[in-house]
């Protein structure tokens, strides 16, 4: 007589073998799926960068951080640096001071032009660091005329 308490052991003993017919069916399906996936892989184009970014959480975070840092840096640089170009109402008088004030009567042939430029570059330029407004320029010109008149 088999005790009923052995039910657990008996149930665990239950074991059937899959038939070769089932094996063939499943293996055929797997082979078909493998062939399809290989075909799909060969036809696949280059992976899209946005797809990679949106798929991975870490990449998403990294891209967001990079954008945030770039934005922050741009903002801080733009806030603290001086404008590189002159404002519309001001005129850079560098050329004027070097070419007109220092050598106003220099000959205009090509050879003397480069020599004049070189010499001008070597001269001290007190107004280079300054940006002149129209008013300042007029004042400077008046000063120049005054000096020239007294000379």
């Amino acid at each position, binding site marked *: *007589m*088999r005790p*009923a308490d052995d*039910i*657990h052991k*008996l*149930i*665990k*003993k*239950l*074991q*059937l*073998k*899959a*038939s070769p*017919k*089932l*094996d063939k*069916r*499943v*293996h055929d*399906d*797997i082979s078909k*799926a*493998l062939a399809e*996936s290989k075909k799909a892989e060969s036809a696949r184009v280059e992976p899209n960068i946005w797809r990679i970014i949106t798929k991975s959480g870490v990449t998403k975070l990294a891209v967001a951080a990079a954008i945030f840092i770039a934005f922050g840096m741009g903002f801080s640089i733009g806030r603290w640096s001086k404008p590189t170009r002159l404002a519309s109402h001001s005129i850079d008088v560098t050329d004027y001071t070097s070419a007109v004030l220092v050598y106003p009567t220099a000959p205009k042939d090509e050879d003397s032009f480069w020599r004049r430029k070189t010499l001008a570059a070597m001269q001290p330029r007190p107004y280079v660091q300054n940006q002149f407004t129209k008013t300042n320029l007029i004042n400077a010109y008046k000063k120049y005329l005054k000096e020239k008149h007294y000379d």
Partner: protein
Amino acid sequence: MLEDKLLIWKFNRGKRDVLRSIYEKYKDDLVTLATVLLTDISAAEDVVHDVFVSFIQSTGRFQLTGSLKSYLMTCVANNARNRNKAKQRHHNIDLDEADPVAADSRNPEFRAIFGEELSQLSWALGQIPYEQREVLILHIYSGMKFKAIAKSQEVSINTVLGRYRYALDKLRSLLNSEVKK
């Protein structure tokens, strides 16, 4: 266990060649489970085949996190349950009035499936209602927890525990009465 982890890792990366290893590892357990549930070996093989076809198609579409064996066992149990329901609808038999599976289990072929030693058990398993048999087999044979079974059957855990207790009692009485004969 480590092998399972490796299989899951490969599966989650969409490597389809891992499917062969998974099938070879679990095919016998799955066929046994389906056969006990449906008491019909050809229907059981169809169920296992269907489950694997779905599994192949789902490669790369979802991420497996738990036990691979439990996942496959649940798939087989769900498929077998659907097949059983469809069979009952087909025969226009009310669930409360008759159990078509029990009729199949009287088939001497089914008794002989598991060999002479387990013929009484296979006969007795065929006599208990489908829901109770499912709980019993999933818990004892597949090693699934009652909570997981309740979730897969969409019933409360108390219902599952009740079915388990009824199934054990009935199986005991059936086996004892069979032995007395």
